[in-house]
């Protein structure tokens, strides 16, 4: 009989263990930063969506003279005046090489443009979600060859799986500035808000504030 108890005790000792758990999260975007998960999520607005749109307008402006000379473009479908600086000139991005294919750029004159977009905007390497936005941008100082400071006013929305969606907007213009020897906008001033919905119910309201380095954003939720 004793040997059965020995076997039972050995069995208990063998199985009575469990392991703990760590949560590791990988975030993405143009810049390198270490933020809370909520702030990292909102960076898809500040550090992906806006900068993709600004990259496109800078590329379009750099190609402006060449496209006017050629009278056509394989990247843009142009209607109205060909000069992108001229009010009413409308350039629609048609190249799949762009992150914002389908975005329409309409010149407002005076170095201001309006972007409208509705499509599957990439999120990470594997996902793309239905996204719409309207963005008003104003060109600022030239910082390096073909790169400018900008101010951005944004509103938009995105739908995700499991009935989640969000509405996002800038609270007033957000300044995108280049500080130091870099090609990216690394110095931001302004605020973005994001309202999160599950189905029809609003479940959260978040705020992402910038007053300098993009890596030092302040994130507040549950407003």
């Amino acid at each position, binding site marked *: *009989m004793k*040997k*059965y108890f020995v*076997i*039972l005790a050995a*069995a*208990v000792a063998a*199985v*009575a263990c*469990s*392991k703990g*758990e760590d*949560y590791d*999260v*990988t*975030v*993405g975007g143009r810049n390198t930063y270490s933020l*809370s*998960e*909520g702030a*990292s*999520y909102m960076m*898809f607005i500040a550090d992906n969506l806006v900068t993709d749109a600004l990259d496109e307008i800078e590329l379009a402006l750099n190609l402006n003279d060449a496209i006017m000379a050629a009278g056509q473009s394989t990247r843009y479908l142009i209607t109205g005046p060909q000069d992108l600086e001229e009010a009413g000139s409308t350039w629609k991005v048609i190249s799949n090489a762009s992150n914002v294919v389908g975005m329409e750029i309409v010149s407002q004159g005076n170095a201001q443009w309006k972007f409208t977009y509705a499509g599957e905007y990439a*999120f*990470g*390497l*594997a*996902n793309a979600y239905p996204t719409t936005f309207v963005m008003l941008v104003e060109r600022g100082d030239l910082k390096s060859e073909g790169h400018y400071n900008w101010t951005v006013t944004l509103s938009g929305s995105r739908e*995700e*799986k*499991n009935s*989640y*969606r*969000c509405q996002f907007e800038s609270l007033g213009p957000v300044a995108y500035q280049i500080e130091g020897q870099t090609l990216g906008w690394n110095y931001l001033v302004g605020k973005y808000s994001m309202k*999160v919905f*599950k189905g029809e119910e609003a*479940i*959260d309201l978040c705020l992402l504030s910038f007053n300098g380095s993009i890596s030092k954003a302040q994130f507040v*939720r549950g407003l």
Partner: protein
Amino acid sequence: MKKLFTVLILLLAGLYALQAQGRHEINLYIGGFNGEYADMETSEEQYLGLSYLYEPQYRVTSGPSLTLDYHFALNKFVKVGAQFDYAKLSGHTYTHISGQQKDFEQNLFYILPQAKIRVPSPKGFRPYGKIAAGVQINSVYSEGHPVKFAWEVVPIGFEWGGQVVYGVAECCLGSVILGGRLGIGCRF
């Protein structure tokens, strides 16, 4: 649980003293982790998304399981009865957006009618197989029904030792136990 274990040991000792032998048998086992919740967690998004941030993730781990079964011999090779299992689960839910983690512990019970089949074998080392189907009573998750279907197949098990008190070891497949069990039994 300690009391139950003590009563069963006393019962086995009494039966052994009486040298009883008959068509009834009771077996007490300790088993591996629970078959369904041994080490289970909800899958997470591969990249930050709203589901990832706002849907609570859960992880459940089970401790070793305790099993008691009873059989009545219909003939020399076929027995019928039922098994009763108990496992303690522990785990936590975690919500990424808030960083909040909530721990919990739950008990899980099974009741499964069962058939046991023995095959002719040398004396003292007796192979068998079992099949069982019944219910799991579970209150781990707030959503869903606490009672659901459970099943188990023992493709191979062995008894060894005497005809009255003996040792048992068996492999298990199904939703109850992951791996196998060891135990003691008695026949009366």
